[in-house]
């Protein structure tokens, strides 16, 4: 339930932002990120960015998500 995935912000428009991962784009809400900007990696939970992360952490979290998803068949 508290699953979160790291995404890269490619466009910010007020509280809304467009983020992407592997070419898949998703509109997210960035109201809880102080001064979110293009190029930031954020941890996204249910469509909301909950924390800014650095690129290495983003890759690590992504790796864990992939392994778990593979096993769960998702």
């Amino acid at each position: 339930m508290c699953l979160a995935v790291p995404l890269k912000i490619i466009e910010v428009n007020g509280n809304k932002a467009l983020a992407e991962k592997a070419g898949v784009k998703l509109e997210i809400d960035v109201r809880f990120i102080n001064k979110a900007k293009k190029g930031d990696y954020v941890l996204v939970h249910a469509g909301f960015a909950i924390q800014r992360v650095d690129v290495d952490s983003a890759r690590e979290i992504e790796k864990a998500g992939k392994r778990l998803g593979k096993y769960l068949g998702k």
Partner: protein
Amino acid sequence: MEVCGTHTHALMQYGLREVYRNKMKLISGPGCPVCVTSQSDVDRLIYLCDQGVRIYTFGDLMKVPGSFGTLREKKALGADVREIYNPLEIIEDMKKDPAEAAVFAAIGFETTAPLVAGLISEIENSSMKNLYIYNLLKRIPPAIETLLSDPDCAIDGLLCPGHVATIIGELPFKRLSEKFKKPFVIAGFTRELLVFALEKMYEMLVTGVSGVFNAYYSTVMRTGNPLAIETLEELFGASDAEWRGLGIIPNSGYALKSEDSVINALQIYPELCKISSKDQCPCGQVLKGKLDPEECKFFGIACNPERPMGPCMVSSEGSCHAAFLYRKEINT
């Protein structure tokens, strides 16, 4: 004990329970908001369906059995039940396809609570008058406090949920660690980060050190996410909440500060408070770590992911579901 469904899965998937078998017994606590949703709450949502109210909810709650079926079954029979990913989708959906009345079953821990707060702000800023919140949000620290205060619960240390801590930071866990003089380790989700957290936990247990160690420091800040905390404090106060298997835990809920808020489903449908049901399966004992999933007499036969009896088997993050999924690894 870990109190995060994703940790439960990862520990089983990576075989870490077995790796640490001779050092520590790793047990699963109440780590998933679906698992701790009481049967009364599911029955109340089903009652609303029967009244013709549209229900919005996160996916897993659809499968949790109430006394008379699940929301998914209600949907199959024609009830208006809709799954969402992002709470803000509800507003768009209500604009596209208006309903006479709709209720959002807001389940979640601290990680999800700010999102619900975001939705509430959007509802208040819009002209929408028929979308209500059935607030099932819960706080993890009071539940940990209840577990650690129970003399029957032999818990020596806590693996803290990484994404709850991302929002609330280290401080609430620090207070608990000081009160109970036990080690708390905030853990991430990769194999490496989990091993790091478990090694630290073992070291703290062996040396008798209490306190909080943040083993997910790349993401969890000491003060959490200040913007999210501020939003939560603006909208919510503490209230008692009912947890499946654990009963009523003081101050473990998020009450809307304006009690007469027009978006509070309990104000609109006061009869919901009269619906109360008793849980039929021993999920509560599993959630307290007193019963291993495999020790439950229903496990795997009467209760399995296809036909779950209780929420620990329904939710993909539930400890029974995880134990069922990884049972081969456990037995070898």
